[in-house]
């Protein structure tokens, strides 16, 4: 097996994040009643004409700029013709040559090493409707057509055949998704079918220049699925070749349950898309000023931000990775940091609070960070209170609970619960003396050199002080008292 290498190219379809469809004014809302988001244009009634959504064009150009593409200022739309019930005009409005964006690249990290993947193009096109073949478990002997998705804007991104392992494909798609979400160009939620992927897989003997026979796996809708499908297909192809068989260029389907790909036979010579320039939509001639405005709107991208977080806030790889995994989290982190009194001291604790406590609670209640009941301002206050010893880390957890439940600010919670930390030495000395008096056994052990024995006494002090005594001070005093 080892003398073969895999060659993978991806065609990624991402639903553009707009309120209205790309060629009509219907809503793009997901999960509406079948055909309730349709109109005379997206059902292709006679005399209807497409009208272009500017925001869809902007989303694609922004994505292109973020991935170092060349924007083709002069381009137009094309009709791609094929009969299918979910394509009401029986042609899809798309772009042929040139597309809106050409020749971009995306860098991915593979066990510490960087690999740059070249991307051929990004173009704008319209989505098709949805065909339903079964209701629940009931398989239908006919099909049902829902055109709510028809004519929603899609960006199709096509890579060069440069990925050479299932893992690389996974890394590419994950990084791409993060970036596109950062830009806000697409939600890329695969479960809602807002990111779909066709995978081209071929194998060739190591060292061979020309590509092997290509197999296209259509309509993958999960990143892990893509990974598994490539792995399976690689093995299958190598298996065929190594027993002297021949591969056919074909389209296959990924059967997730069985974990295999199946050939989908399509009528020979039946496919001829008969592309031609779309006469209903006028061409583009995009002014530089327009493109520069969009360039200015492209935010700092995940990798750059990750690096900056590590450098500026001296965070661990791990924390930086997590905090930059979405723009919302990264923004929340920096808002919190900016609201806190001492940035140096706060940067790590804040990172921890977000990645553990807050993240945990959000996941539990299925919330996004921008819906967090704990505002960045309040989290900043909490961390400050801990840093200047007003409350112990242990109390802080209780306080945080309240803050989350009641979306309250820490001071109020602390007042209500009377959770003030006792740092007044004389008060603590008094409690310590009582505690020492009440635990002769531990004292004896300690004096006999069993340092750990002090724990029991500390525990007692904390108990007497209802956990409000400042642990550091308690330790200091006890040691003073016992060492004499």
């Amino acid at each position: 097996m080892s003398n073969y290498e895999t060659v993978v190219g991806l065609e990624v379809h991402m639903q553009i994040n707009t309120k209205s469809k790309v060629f009509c004014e219907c809503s793009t809302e997901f999960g509406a009643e079948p055909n309730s988001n349709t109109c005379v244009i997206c059902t292709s009634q006679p005399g209807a004409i497409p009208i272009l959504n500017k925001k869809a064009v902007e989303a694609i150009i922004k994505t292109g700029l973020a991935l170092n593409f060349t924007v083709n200022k002069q381009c137009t739309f094309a009709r791609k013709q094929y009969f299918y019930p979910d394509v009401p005009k029986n042609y899809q409005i798309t772009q042929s040559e040139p597309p809106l964006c050409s020749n971009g690249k995306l860098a991915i990290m593979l066990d510490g090493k960087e690999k740059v993947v070249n991307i051929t193009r990004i173009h704008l096109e319209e989505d098709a409707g949805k065909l339903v073949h079964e209701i629940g478990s009931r398989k239908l002997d006919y099909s049902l057509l829902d055109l709510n998705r028809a004519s929603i804007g899609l960006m199709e991104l096509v890579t060069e055949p440069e990925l050479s392992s299932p893992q690389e494909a996974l890394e590419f798609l994950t990084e791409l998704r993060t970036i596109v979400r950062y830009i806000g160009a697409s939600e890329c939620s695969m479960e809602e079918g807002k990111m779909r992927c066709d995978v081209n897989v071929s194998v060739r003997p190591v060292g061979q220049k020309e590509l092997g026979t290509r197999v296209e796996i259509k309509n993958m809708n999960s990143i892990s699925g893509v990974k598994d499908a490539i792995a399976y297909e690689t093995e299958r192809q190598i298996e065929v070749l190594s027993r002297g068989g021949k591969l056919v260029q074909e389209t296959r389907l990924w059967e997730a349950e069985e974990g295999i790909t199946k050939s989908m036979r399509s009528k020979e010579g039946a496919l001829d898309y008969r592309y031609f320039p779309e006469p209903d939509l006028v061409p583009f001639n995009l002014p530089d000023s327009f493109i520069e405005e969009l360039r200015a709107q492209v935010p700092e991208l995940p990798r750059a931000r990750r690096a900056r977080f590590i450098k500026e806030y001296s965070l661990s790889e791990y924390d930086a990775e997590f905090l930059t995994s979405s723009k919302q989290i990264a923004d929340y982190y920096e808002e919190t940091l900016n609201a806190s009194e001492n940035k140096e001291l706060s940067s790590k604790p804040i990172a921890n609070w977000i990645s553990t406590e807050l993240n945990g609670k959000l996941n539990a209640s299925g919330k996004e960070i921008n819906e967090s009941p704990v505002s960045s301002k309040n989290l900043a206050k909490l961390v400050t209170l801990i840093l200047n010893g007003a409350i112990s880390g242990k109390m802080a957890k209780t306080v945080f609970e309240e803050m989350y439940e009641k979306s309250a600010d820490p001071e109020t919670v602390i007042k209500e619960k009377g959770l003030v930390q006792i740092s007044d030495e004389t008060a603590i000395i008094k409690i310590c003396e009582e505690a020492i008096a009440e635990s002769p056994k531990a004292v004896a052990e300690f004096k006999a050199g069993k340092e750990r024995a002090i724990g029991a006494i500390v525990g007692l002090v904390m108990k007497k002080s209802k956990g409000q005594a400042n642990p550091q001070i308690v330790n200091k005093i006890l040691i003073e008292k016992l060492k004499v």
Partner: protein
Amino acid sequence: MDEILTCSVKDLRTKICAGEVKSVDAVKACYKRIKEVEPKVKAFLKLNEEQALKHAAASDEKIRSGQKCGVLEGVPIAIKDNIMIKGESMTSASKYLENYVSPYDATVIERLKSAGAVFIGRTNMDEFAMGGSTETSAYQQTANPWDITKIPGGSSGGSAAAVSSAMAPFALGSDTGGSIRQPAGFTGIVGYKPSYGLISRYGVCALASSFDQIGSFSKNVYDTALLVSVIAGKDYRDPVCEPTEQTDYTEGFDNSGVFKKLKIGIPKELSNYSSDGEILKSFDNAVRNLQLEGAEIVEVSAPSYKYVPALYKVIMCAEVSANIATFDGIRYGYRSPNGISLNDEYAKSRGESLGYEVKKRILFGTYVLGAKNYHRCYHQAQRVRTLLINDLNKAFSECDFIFSPSTLQMPVKFGEELPEECDIFLIAANLGGFPGITVPCGFTKNRMPMGVHFMGKRFSDAKLFQAAHAFEKISGFDMSQYPKI
């Protein structure tokens, strides 16, 4: 004949607005005439007297109660059956759309409604406007009112016949390759196709999207200008529809001596084609009249006129093959009961409901767009189209209008073919997006009308009307004459 019927739209609207003539009476007059001649002419696919009278009564009431009336308040108009009117049938003269009811109004219809016009009926046409004789209609054959053994021309033959036989004061049509101007010429009325992009295409059943334009039929140029003033102008629902300052296209009609300032170009290529002797005679006469009016006559040349028929067929059929694909029996229209698989059902639904001419054009268009033919066929045609446009723009640098007979041949009997080059001077306007208007210029010995065609630079439509209007005064064509049917 009832003087309401011989009255121009210009006067009719003034009289209706002044309460001198009731809209209801105007509509009744139309229907009285329809009952007399329609059995022989067969211009209409659908009539709705009741509804028309209801709308007319509403206009009369508006006027009686002193409300402001629209530009075309209460004036009857006929509409080609490929333009969408909400809640009304729209068949495009095809079996495929036999039971189709339009779910929305075309932009031109919206504008006509708010101007107060009254729709009296839907006119016959070639199926999906594919044809030049109205014979490919799936429903009926429309006769030329001047000789009911002959074709009225097409594809908008129904609108032409209705106006020329005074069943309607004016009408809407669509023009993709002469479909308004050729039948207007054949029936002795004014036919106009705007600059591509002057009038919204939203709601007209598409034939060839890059040529299609809605236009009009009327008995004089002023009435057309008036109608255009109502329906022209920017519409965000049609991306190719251009913003224009002009809102009143009837301006400057009273100016005398229009031609003193004009250069009229006569295409040298005219002599390359065999054309009807009487047509050439009346055309020469028209040229002489222009000269007498002080127009400067210049010979212009556009050698690529010879490519017009080929250009038109290749590009039009290609676009047809894509535009007609949506008629698949899935969401509306005819679905064959005989399909055994989805693909078989597609093929049968289309095969059984579309006419031969339509299917032939779809097949040709499908072929010229095929991956292995595209470059040699469609792409090549689009480049030759550039050559033609360059030729014509060069010609326009030497003249204001290109002047020609509207057609090179007279209308033929049913079932007979017209030669390909019959209306190349009209089709050239569609290929270049230029405005064109045909105006009657005389009769043949056996009382058949003939017309001339003015083609102008893009968006010179207002100027085009002024020239055509001035010509109509000197054409010697007696508009008060009507065909004896």
